[in-house]
């Protein structure tokens, strides 16, 4: 009884909620007509995927990403331990690196590369340059420690760039395949499982220094929402509305365009590093 009265009371009070003004009909029509004639398309079509990989490639790629993540974790742990020698290798020390052989440089190789490729300055050259600069500025044990810290920081940044570039490439491929499967009505039952894997990596990246860049953080958050929606897609036929909301979300947030905008630049950066 009390509830009924309260509901009536709420219903009456709620009629002023977001009360709409008179619609600007002509202004809206002009904008619609302009967009439809192609002068400024308001809804940009998403182009088909440039590269089509088989669906089983995604779990493999996710596993590869996981391995890279583990290696990055080991490297970070090693760098934070006192006495770790990976960074010392580039400062001209005679001692060989105790771990991370695939990433640490042999003595003097950085300096040689820096002389050979002054313009593009790949990772090893930059590392040598940084080490030399730091060493020349600061002599003695304190200067060496500073050089080591700078090297660790730079190496850590590159490692995150590698992981995030790989992750964005995988996400772009996955979303392109998902979109194509939806459009063509193909079977995409594996999509929720793959989305869950990508979602787990996404959340790790959101908590990492890679997400300090606001644009990257926004992209990761939008990706998180899309992946969470895909990961919860039901398997039955009632999913049509959910799929539409997901694809509309992709369109409205320009997720694919932003992914593609980020991916080539970052991949080029990584290629430079390697």
């Amino acid at each position, binding site marked *: 009884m009390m509830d009924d009265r309260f509901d009536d*009371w709420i219903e009456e009070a709620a009629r002023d909620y977001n009360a709409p003004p008179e*619609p600007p009909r002509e202004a809206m*029509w002009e904008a619609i007509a302009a967009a439809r004639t192609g002068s400024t398309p308001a809804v940009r079509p998403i182009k088909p995927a440039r590269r089509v990989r088989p669906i089983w490639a995604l779990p493999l790629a996710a596993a590869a990403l996981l391995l890279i993540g583990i290696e990055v974790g080991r490297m970070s742990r090693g760098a934070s331990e006192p006495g770790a020698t990976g960074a010392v290798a580039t400062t001209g020390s005679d001692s060989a690196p105790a771990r991370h052989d695939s990433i640490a440089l042999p003595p003097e190789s950085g300096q040689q590369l820096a002389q050979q490729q002054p313009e593009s300055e790949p990772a090893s050259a930059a590392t040598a340059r940084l080490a030399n600069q730091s060493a020349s500025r600061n002599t003695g044990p304190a200067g060496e420690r500073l050089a080591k810290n700078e090297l660790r920081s730079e190496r850590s940044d590159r490692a995150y760039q590698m992981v995030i570039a790989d992750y964005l490439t995988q996400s772009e491929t996955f979303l392109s395949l998902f979109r194509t499967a939806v459009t063509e009505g193909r079977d995409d039952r594996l999509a929720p499982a793959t989305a869950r894997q990508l979602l787990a990596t996404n959340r790790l990246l959101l908590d990492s220094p890679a997400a300090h860049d606001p644009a990257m953080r926004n992209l990761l958050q939008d990706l998180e929402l899309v992946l969470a929606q895909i990961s919860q897609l039901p398997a039955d036929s009632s999913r049509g509305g959910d799929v539409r909301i997901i694809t509309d979300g992709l369109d409205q947030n320009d997720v694919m365009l932003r992914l593609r905008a980020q991916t080539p630049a970052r991949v080029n950066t990584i290629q430079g590093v390697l």
Partner: protein
Amino acid sequence: MDEQRLIQRVLAGDPVAERALYDGHVDRVYRLVYRIVGEPDRAQDCTQETFIRAFERLADFRGESALGTWIGRIAITVALNGLRRIKRNWNREVVLDDAAAVGAPAHHAEPDLKERLAMAIDDLPEGYRTVFVLHDVEGYTHEEIGGLLGVQPGTSKAQLSRARARLRVALADFALEQ
């Protein structure tokens, strides 16, 4: 003009028919998205995008529901996606001031209650809020809401009931005064 004929003419590229279709639905679409997004510029953007999409996809319209329902469904999807995009960070007070300035207050709810109620509605989960706005604010039936949201009328009733229960809790002190 018959709806089916109007659609055929729009598909044939007749600009007069396009404008007629727009005129026939624009007020309802704008009203609907405004109730959801609560801000004039955003409502205008959503309305425009709704019609752009509707014209683009009109060839896919199979007549399984009324054209107005089909367009309304696009409008709600566009508005909800727009809201997600901005992460609901708009300022409640500004919206209320704008709404009060242009809307005609036909009822006699206390200003403080209206503001509290508006904030409580904003805080509802998206599904509850959409059904509450469509039913209690815009006056749609549960069958119409089912058509707009692509859900069963029973789902709409359940969502409305939960929305009201949440509002009761949020406004419990007002309920005691009644």
